[in-house]
């Protein structure tokens, strides 16, 4: 019997395998910034889109899609470190004529896709009217009506002055405008398919759970965006996204705060780090009604016992600005000093004055690395003044029900916790959760102050900046005086991207692709 060597020899197999690597590497890469004569941007999408209708969206990634393809009256700009608004490219004129009247005049020639004609003032009126009955109507509480004065012009009439409406509503997701005729044809609302768009980009492809592709809108009369195509690629996990960036598959991604030191100190080649904003605010909350914490001296002792700088260093690697109140840096009214600070001697003195000894507390926190590290430092700090603390990590479900009366009786046992909220660009947005009305809902600290409520109401309609600043300052002082808070830090919205890319990311973390430029 003879054996012919027709099959693959071992030596041949090994040689083939070695050769396969470079060959695979030479196959066309799906994600290259400049390819096939086109400029292509590959951006990481954190969550797949669900509802693109501004009235019924979840928010977040949907807003970035809306920004790319839908019209709006104004957008956010950063002027000397403070966020404010500027008219969008659709506007010939946009101004606040008096505290309750905003007049607008649209440029002509902006066409809706799918043959729905020109973008007109009628679309603006329809968009805002429908917001009053939408899921996001709370954002438009100040809106009374829209009066049209011509096909391209009109006036937005407010029920009362609302300086916050610019940065919390008009420039935000709830300020994106829809096509009246197309939306009516779609039955009044829509989910993942926008019936007509009017932006520099159009949605060319959506592959659920994979990617969304924008291409240039050939009928766009405004300034053309720098990128011919934007591929918005779904990578939900932060670590996977960082690897995808390092492998060259995405050109920009949000990064976890724990990864920031690596990228700031030793970035990959051709990489910049951009911090879009610090609109998250974190604090150690105390239930002022809990029997163990009713003594104000005890709470004040805790305020002085917590070493916030150590928390920022250990849990956030010095990448989060220290918090001095709930208004974050960059937002009008942000403070640079709180009325208390780390002073263990004073904390011990206050504990002695309180007459309380052998105190044991439960510190509840979300089960996340940075929060747990923060909790451990707080535990050590409180031990230093004679308070024994037990850390209880919780998943998001139980945690977010902790202080809400509508979710059970847990709120009665809540003692101290690490909390983080996020806000918009106007200070009013931050105070809304701490009024007397919010006790048992989001005011888990359960303190009330008539003065606070009164100033908060006035702030909503106050238009004079000096008086607003005074009010914001007093509101934060009252919160300090409640002794229900230890201000911790403002977590950054940080992104890594190619050096050749100048991204525009709104401080709440959404990309504004139409304003991205390539160097």
């Amino acid at each position, binding site marked *: 019997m003879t054996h012919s060597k027709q099959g693959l020899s071992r030596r041949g197999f090994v040689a083939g395998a070695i050769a396969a690597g470079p060959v695979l590497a030479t196959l066309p890469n799906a994600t290259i910034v400049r390819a096939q004569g086109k400029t292509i941007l590959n951006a990481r999408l954190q969550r797949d889109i669900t509802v693109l209708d501004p009235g019924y969206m979840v928010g977040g990634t949907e807003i970035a899609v809306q920004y790319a393809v839908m019209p709006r009256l104004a957008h956010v700009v950063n002027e000397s470190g403070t966020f404010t608004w500027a008219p969008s490219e659709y506007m010939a004129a946009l101004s606040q004529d008096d505290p309750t009247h905003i007049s607008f005049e649209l440029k002509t020639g902006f066409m809706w896709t799918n043959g729905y004609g020109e973008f007109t003032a009628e679309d603006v009126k329809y968009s805002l009217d429908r917001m009053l009955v939408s*899921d996001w109507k709370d954002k438009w509480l100040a809106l009374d009506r829209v009066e049209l004065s011509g096909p391209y012009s009109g006036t937005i009439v407010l029920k009362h002055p609302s300086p916050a409406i610019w940065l919390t509503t008009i420039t935000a997701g709830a300020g994106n405008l829809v096509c009246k005729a197309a939306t009516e044809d779609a039955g009044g609302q829509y989910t993942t398919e926008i019936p007509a768009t009017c932006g520099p980009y159009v949605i060319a492809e959506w592959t659920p759970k994979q990617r969304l592709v924008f291409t240039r809108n050939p009928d766009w009369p405004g300034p053309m965006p720098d990128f011919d195509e934007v591929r918005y690629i779904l990578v*939900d996990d932060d670590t996977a996204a960082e690897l995808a960036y390092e492998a060259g598959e995405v050109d920009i991604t949000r990064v976890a705060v724990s990864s920031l030191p690596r990228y700031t100190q030793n970035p990959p080649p051709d990489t910049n780090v951009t911090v879009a904003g610090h609109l998250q605010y974190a604090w150690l909350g105390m239930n002022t009604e809990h029997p163990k914490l009713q003594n104000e001296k005890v709470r004040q002792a805790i305020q002085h016992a917590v070493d916030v700088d150590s928390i920022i260093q250990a849990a956030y690697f010095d990448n989060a600005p220290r918090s001095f109140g709930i208004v974050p840096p960059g937002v009008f009214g942000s403070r640079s000093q709180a009325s208390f600070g780390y002073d263990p001697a004073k904390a011990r003195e206050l504990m002695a004055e309180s007459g309380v000894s052998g105190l044991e507390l439960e510190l509840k926190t979300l089960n996340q690395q940075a929060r747990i590290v923060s909790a451990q430092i707080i535990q050590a700090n409180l031990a230093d003044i004679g308070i024994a603390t037990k850390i209880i990590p919780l998943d998001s479900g139980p945690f977010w029900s902790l202080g809400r009366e509508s979710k059970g009786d847990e709120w009665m046992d809540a003692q101290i916790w690490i909390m983080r909220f996020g806000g918009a660009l106007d200070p009013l947005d931050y105070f809304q959760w701490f009024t007397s009305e919010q006790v048992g809902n989001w005011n888990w600290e359960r303190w009330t102050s008539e003065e606070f409520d009164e100033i908060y109401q006035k702030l909503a309609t106050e238009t004079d900046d000096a008086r607003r600043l005074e009010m914001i300052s007093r509101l934060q002082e009252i919160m300090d005086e409640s002794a229900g808070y230890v201000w911790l830090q403002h977590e950054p919205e940080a992104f890594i991207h190619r050096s050749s890319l100048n991204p525009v990311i709104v401080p709440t973390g959404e990309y504004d692709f139409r304003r991205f430029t390539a160097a």
Partner: protein
Amino acid sequence: MLNYALQRIGLAIVIVFLVVFALFVMIHFIPGDPVAIALGPRATPEIEARFVAKMRLDEPLYMQFFAFLGGVLQGDLGNDIFSERPVLTILFEALPYTVILATAAMAWSAALGIFLGCFSAARPNSLIDRITGVVSIGTITVPSFVVSIYMLIVFAVFLKWLPVIGAGEPGNFWDQARHLILPAFAVGLGWVGYVARMVRASMLEVIGENHIRAARSFGLPHRVVVYRYALKVAILPTITLLGIGFGNLLSGAVFAEIIFSRPGIGKLIFDMVMTRNFPVVQGGVLVTAILYVATTLTADLLAAAMDPRIRKSL
């Protein structure tokens, strides 16, 4: 044989029903307020109310289950609570990716595992047999997510030979194949060891039997005896193992799907559990249970068809 098949199919339906019921109950007993988790802490009361109504959370659990079951019997798994897309559409968009991944993983791991098992069995207690044993146990014990991450770092980040994320350009076969290599390798690696050990044990048993000794005594070459005569008999238990294994891979692929950001049924269910999108979770669990039971059933029927001893014992 027909009676056996009918009995197994009947049992399969009962199993699917019980699995779906058990998971339905478990999903609803996950701690935490599903409304807050799904919508985030700041959802307006209107959004919360709409969510509760859509999810039928204001109804007793048994009503929710029977409503789901009624829908299933009519071929309607409901709609995604956010996008309102039909659950069936969403599932059938994700399912092919998982089936392709599981098939590719099982194919390469079975091919290599069978080869290693035969190779070891043909040289029992030799150095090669021992090395193969260590390799097999090694592949079984290393978790697939660890393999996934290392593969990703080495072949995608450092060498840049293969892509990191996704399933490839829609409609581009070669791109999709490139995107399949790392996840399929990571998912299948553990099965190489299982298959190799199973084949080796079966082969050693079969090699000692009379018909194999008879084949050797006729002077047939070693390779022919091992691969044509012994393997044909020894492969039967492995077929059953592969049937169960394929079912396991369907759910086990979730790690690779998450790490490689690859769409698939496992990742879909994982994401939807995290957002408490119950209609999609329930639909996904139903489809996965059916697939699992179907593959196991197919393997059993195949084994019975191939082995007269099994048929005779029915």
